[in-house]
């Protein structure tokens, strides 16, 4: 009985081995070998085709800079009292510095006039905000209230069927401190229009609401009363 079981396993093993052999087999192109053996063919020498990017050519003569991001160390923010004299190995530098010990100054901003995707905004456009209240750095006035802030439209994701709204994302905010130095504010502003999917999708799913599939979501609008918090570090 035992021998039969072992023989059975052995057979399975042989099948597996056979499968492996078939799998690893290199299939020769025997038709080509038999047809062309002894014949002398030469591969044609053709000039290399080079396709010019004539769209990108329109960028020539203009000055653009490739953005260089510094590769720095991630700060280890474990307080000294937890280390108890232990030596911790330094982390491998992998990316940008995120120094949690650095003092972060919060800056509130609001748009100078309403920003809406209805007005044909496109990515890379500049839109204007103003600082909502005086910003202090160690009790010293750092950025005055109403200082102009410019923002960059990073992405506009258009409204779609099924009640999907427009979405707008802004970043790269720039302003100036009281001494006139350029200040880069970190953070994003994201806003989306009315999400009509709340009622469009359930209606569509009932099976009778097919026409509702064509309803698009609302336009994104940033009102002058909307406030956003950015920071400077």
């Amino acid at each position, binding site marked *: 009985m*035992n*021998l039969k079981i*072992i*023989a059975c*396993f*052995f057979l399975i*093993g*042989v099948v*597996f*081995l056979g499968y*492996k052999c078939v799998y690893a087999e290199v299939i020769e192109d025997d038709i080509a070998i038999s047809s062309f053996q002894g014949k002398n063919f030469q591969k044609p020498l053709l000039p290399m*085709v*080079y*396709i*010019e*990017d*004539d*769209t*990108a050519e*329109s*960028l*020539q003569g*203009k*000055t*653009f*800079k*490739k*953005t260089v*991001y510094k*590769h720095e160390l*991630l700060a280890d923010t474990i307080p000294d009292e937890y280390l108890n004299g232990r030596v911790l190995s330094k982390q491998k530098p*992998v*990316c*940008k510095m*995120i120094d949690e010990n650095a003092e972060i100054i919060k800056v509130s901003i609001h748009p100078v006039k309403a920003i809406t995707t209805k007005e044909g905004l*496109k*990515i*890379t*456009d*500049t839109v204007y905000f103003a600082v909502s209240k005086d910003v202090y750095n160690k009790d010293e006035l750092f950025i005055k209230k109403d200082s102009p802030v*410019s923002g*960059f439209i*990073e*992405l506009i*994701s*258009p409204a*779609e*069927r*099924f009640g*999907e709204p427009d*979405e707008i994302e802004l970043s*790269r905010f*720039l302003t100036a401190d009281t001494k006139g130095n350029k200040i880069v504010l970190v953070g994003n502003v994201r806003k989306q229009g009315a*999400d009509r*999917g709340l009622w469009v*999708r359930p209606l569509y799913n009932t099976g009778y609401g097919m026409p509702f599939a064509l309803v698009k979501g609302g336009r994104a609008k940033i009102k002058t009363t909307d406030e956003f918090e950015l920071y400077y570090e």
Partner: protein
Amino acid sequence: MKKITVFLLFLFVFNSVAWSYEIDLTKDGQYQKKVMEMGFSILNSNRIDKRVVFRFESSKQANAYASSYDKSVIVLRGLMPYIDDDAELAGILCHEIAHQMDFYEGPWRRMAMSFNSKKYEEKADKKAVDYMIKSGYDPVALITALNKFCGQTDGDFGMSHPMTSKRLAYIYEYIYQKYPAYLADNSYKNNLYYQNFLLTSRKDREKIKNKNLINVSNKHQKD
């Protein structure tokens, strides 16, 4: 004696099968490390404060996907023959990370993504370009990577992704408009797959050129 011989033969056969899998695992381990290091570097460079993990799986399919269940980005082994450099792999990872950021918006957003998947694919492609720039990779690599392994369907009605030619065109347009330096001084201009993209995208690129998207006076672009 006979029994012992049969048993030893059995062990030999099964051991050889098991051993061949171990070799595969070693290879996958290297890819896993690569994908993981690159993925975390992209997350940190972009200051993405949401948890995302990266897994390499031994499947022959040429694909990568984002799992909304455990917020992981999964790269399948079948994709690797299509990847020629780090920037191309980074492009794929950045696209999936962008999907994860939408998954983090909650179940309502996930439902919206299933209804309007093409819109979110476009958004993920564009966000991928931004993530690549911030983590130091050339965004043109996203074009070469997609041009290699995404086929061309007759249309995209009812499909989860836009037609590949459309995807390549809007990625090109996004780079053209936002990061023109990467096209003006293009490191991929002699790349075989980029050349093929140029060959197949002439009409789309002409349309982009005629849109007059470049705004050189924009101080944000100068910075």
